């Protein structure tokens, strides 16, 4: 399926909760944050879409807002698409898709660790790459590294 067909399929099902389709080198579909778990569940189980794998989940900081990007892929249909949800920078919250694809558990932990995006309903939302008591979210564009970590000077 082309990106346009995927978009039409999703829009027929979810109406205005699917915002728009952007054509780029790789096209993406914007989805309202509260609908993302449902949309992903549908995209995985619908016979025509059949996105059986979540290839990648990334956070992006655009300075005025944050984005979570879901790259979905289907090996049986040989198509792929990116879904994007946009959230505010203060208290960003997105429903978890952990129950749709298990791998999302770790990807979401990484997005939480690096951007502070909270995935609501996640079973084990802890830092994954940084130490548990690290301060701040390193991949935010305005991140300032802490001066000391447990009495050790942090060299930048």
């Amino acid at each position: 399926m082309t990106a346009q067909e995927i978009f039409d399929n999703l829009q027929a099902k979810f109406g205005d909760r699917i915002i728009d389709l952007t054509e780029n080198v790789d096209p993406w579909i914007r989805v309202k944050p509260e609908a993302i778990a449902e949309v992903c569940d549908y995209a995985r189980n619908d016979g025509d879409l059949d996105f059986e794998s979540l290839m990648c989940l990334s956070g992006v900081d655009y300075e005025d807002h944050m984005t979570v990007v879901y790259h979905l892929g289907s090996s049986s249909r040989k198509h792929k698409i990116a879904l994007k949800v946009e959230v505010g920078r203060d208290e960003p919250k997105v429903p978890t898709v952990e129950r749709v694809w298990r791998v999302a558990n770790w990807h979401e932990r990484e997005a939480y660790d690096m951007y502070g995006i909270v995935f609501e309903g996640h079973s084990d939302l802890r830092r994954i790459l940084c130490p548990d008591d690290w301060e701040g979210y390193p991949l935010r564009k305005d991140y300032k590294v802490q001066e000391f970590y447990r009495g050790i000077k942090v060299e930048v």
Partner: protein
Amino acid sequence: MAETTDIPEGAIPEATVTVDHPGLPELGPLEDDSLDSDLMTLNMGPQHPSTHGVLRLELKTDGEIVSNVRPHIGYLHRCFEKHAESLTYQQVIPFTDRMDYLAAMNNNLAYCLAVEKILELKVPERVEYVRVIMCELNRIASHLVSFGTYGMDIGAFTPFLFAFREREDIFDLFEMACGARMLYNYIWVGGVSHDLPVGFIEKTRAFLDGFAAKMDEYNDLLSNNKIFIERTANVGVLPLEAAFSYNLTGPNLRGSGYKWDLRRDDPYSIYDRFEFDIPIGSGEMGQLGDCWDRYMVRIREMAESVKIIRQALDGLPDGDVHETVPRNVRPPKDTECYFRSETPRGEMGIYVISDGSNVPYRVKVKSPCFTAIAAMNDLCRGHYVADIIAVIGSIDIVLGEVDR
């Protein structure tokens, strides 16, 4: 001593043992419910020879049976993604070498193809061929390490020495081409750093000619070894459903019997021009998707890589490898792409966002090993502690890539 003489001859004295340990409770009759059958926590790693790097596993064991595995990663976290946001596109390439340091060429290629995709840059034919030759050689070298260390994990030391012998030959070839043996910075955006040196093609052909016989040695030594099969067959079975849910890719997915290889199914570079098979697991020695299947997929893939390199050497055209190397990489504003390529460990995804400057706005790497470790709990549950080693070796992880 004197008292013992008082015992009359022939009489056996009654045992008169008085237990008097002050401070200890008196021994009572042993009751069943006094035996504690709680789970035990066992810590494995981070400095453990069988975890292939600095991985820490927290095991909950019931006797010797593992009931839960909780992996802890991040010991090798070097902030690759943060670094990438302050370096130019070309300067990021050496950092990609250091992610999966056993297959640096394949990492270079994944990143460069992603950048070329948003630049819409077409590279000369010769560059494409050289890249394929290097990447497939590196795939063999990487699978050799996987094979050798897996044998060592299971308790066979000799295969490791055999594997590293051939790996050195491949490193000699890389050293000829670019001067480095492990971290190459060879594949550049728009080209490669050096053209193939004089004698490279002949030396590569000589290596390939001898390699088939070496593969027989590997199979004799390890693949068909009774002890090895006992340790790996029916262990760590990965059902296809779980493989998709955890997005396991590459040899781990193919080990579960699913024919999916990006080089054929979503071809990039010039892989669609070559004839090669895609080996998959079939449950020959036990269940489909067990450790032996995953292991054997890698062994057979080496033979396929040999086929690809031969075809690439035959078709290698002339040309200038620096012709399309851009002096300044500035992709158009607000373009982005997610590019995935088949590295020896599975699908490596590179997500690049450009803001129109010569520095990437965001680079995200989806590492195939990251998702493989995420699946550890489901793979290991119900196995013996010793089998955990077999499972870790069979999913072939490189922690440098997991933690980035």
